[in-house]
């Protein structure tokens, strides 16, 4: 490890440790906000692992999240919770691999459209299966897992995602993805199996999102397909990741924290205008801060360093 890597590693550990103290001091608003932020931190960071280098915009996060949540909902009567989280992760990985195989050999537009419809497709199938099987549309998930535990679980998952991201960045796979992101033609003529590289990353990203859904299932206690497969989630993940900057591992978290605080305030104040505000956020990300906060920070710090 280089010196900056050790420094960044220590900073990360300290920040996570500080965050882990939140449930001890507050069990109301800040804990609930902490869970939201931790959820989106994990989702956005894992989204950026795939979409940052490849420039493929995935809107499948909601689908994977829903798969995780639903797996827990369906199986909670049959299997222990922890086993279900693992089962959910496996299902998520398999779905991601299948989607990746079908779409990632092709242009980005096809991928976006496919992932856009994926959550709704799975929801339609789930609803159809439920009605034909004659079961009720909602599922109860009653466990003794409390909010602080969910929060800590998310933090641990966050650390794991950071570690995976750091490891990928310094591995051949990360190098391959950077080449793919620059010029796919050069990549294939350098011997890179571009489809495989993209699929691996998409599977990692999708699996993490599935696990997040599975971890959050106990928080809801009653799961309906329209809640589990909400399309809004995928869009917010895209916005927070791009707002922070998808090119850096630490980018998304810089986007998630301010966005969630502001978003919470705005949705509470103007509950009927959330879609409109989401639209404005998208335009802001494209036109005002194309490289995200991370891009701004780096530009600013370069300038500072240039002066001294």
């Amino acid at each position: 490890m280089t010196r900056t890597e050790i420094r960044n590693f220590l900073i990360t550990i300290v920040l996570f440790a500080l965050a882990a103290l939140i449930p001890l001091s507050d069990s109301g608003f800040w804990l609930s906000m902490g869970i939201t932020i931790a959820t989106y931190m994990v989702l956005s960071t894992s989204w950026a692992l795939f979409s940052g280098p490849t420039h493929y915009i995935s809107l499948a996060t909601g689908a994977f999240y829903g798969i995780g949540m639903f797996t827990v909902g369906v199986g909670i009567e049959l299997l222990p919770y922890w086993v279900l989280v693992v089962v959910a992760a496996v299902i998520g990985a398999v779905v991601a691999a299948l989607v990746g195989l079908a779409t990632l050999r092709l242009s980005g537009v096809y991928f976006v459209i496919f992932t856009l419809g994926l959550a709704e497709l799975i929801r339609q199938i789930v609803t159809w299966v439920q009605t034909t099987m004659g079961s009720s549309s909602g599922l109860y998930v009653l466990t003794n897992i409390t909010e602080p535990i969910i929060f800590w679980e998310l933090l641990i998952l966050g650390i794991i995602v950071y570690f995976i991201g750091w490891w990928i960045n310094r591995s051949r796979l990360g190098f391959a993805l950077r080449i793919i992101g620059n010029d796919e033609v050069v990549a294939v003529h350098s011997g890179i199996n571009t489809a495989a590289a993209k699929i691996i990353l998409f599977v990692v990203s999708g699996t993490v999102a599935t696990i997040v859904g599975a971890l959050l299932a106990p928080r809801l206690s009653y799961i309906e397909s329209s809640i589990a497969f909400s399309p809004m989630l995928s869009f917010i993940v895209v916005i927070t990741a791009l707002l922070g900057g998808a090119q850096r591992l630490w980018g998304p978290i810089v986007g998630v924290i301010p966005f969630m605080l502001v978003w919470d305030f705005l949705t509470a104040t103007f509950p009927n205008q959330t879609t409109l505000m989401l639209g404005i956020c998208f335009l802001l990300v494209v036109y005002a801060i194309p490289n995200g906060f991370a891009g701004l920070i780096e530009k600013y710090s370069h300038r500072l360093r240039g002066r001294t």
Partner: protein
Amino acid sequence: MEILLGGILLGGTYALIAMGLQLQYGVARIMNLANGEVLVAGSFGALWLFTGAQINPILAIVLLAPAAYILNYFIYLIFLRPLVRRAKSEGQLEVDSILSTFGISFIFIGLLHAIFGGEYFNYEYLEIPFEIFGQAYGVNRIIAFVGAAILAALLYIWLTHTRSGLRLRAVSVTPSSARLVGIDVERTSAMAFALGGAVTAAGGSLISMFDTFDASIGVVFTMKALIIVILGGVKEIRGTIVAAFILGFAETAVATLIDPGLTLAAAFLLFILVLLFRPQGLFGRQSS
């Protein structure tokens, strides 16, 4: 038979919407994910004109299409042209325009929601049953189909038999060469984008005659239009028309034989099959 006719009636309007998107994606090279919202805005416009001023939806197109043309022209100028100019590569333009048009689509939804509210809407216009082969169809459905067919035919003739249509096709094939023969690519792109919006809004007015809609249903139409365009092959107008009917049949078949809740699943199944076996579309040529 029932499926066949239902499919044809549905496919007609789909063809029109998909041609709108085809103009925007094939010529102006903007993957417009706000396409469905323009359609829904057209539906709301028709509703408003019908309930407020007793103007029938066919006549309403005469007002709505030019309005949508102007609106989309400005959307292109304000939001999309800057992206075209700053894009260093086609990939970057693709990503930027996807994000930007997502933003625009949400703003559309938000505004429609604020103006009309979140309920489902429909209005009664010519809901007289009409029997074909022993099966009753609403006259409004048939009129919508005929209207869509006429508009699509006019658009096709315009594209293939006029100078301005030729200009559009030239830009669609190779913008750089079109520039060499004196075509203003930027203006032609803006025009194609605006025209695509106008066609889509007209489609929205036709659909509102027989279908219920709400402020947030646009994305469903965007998906369908996109699937049709990909199924038929990008830049292939004839392919688009055939693909629209294929999707119309597939959806009607699934809705009648299995469950009306699975129409999107049917569309997706088609989509997956195309992606796996013929990614260039049914009528698309293999790119070099």
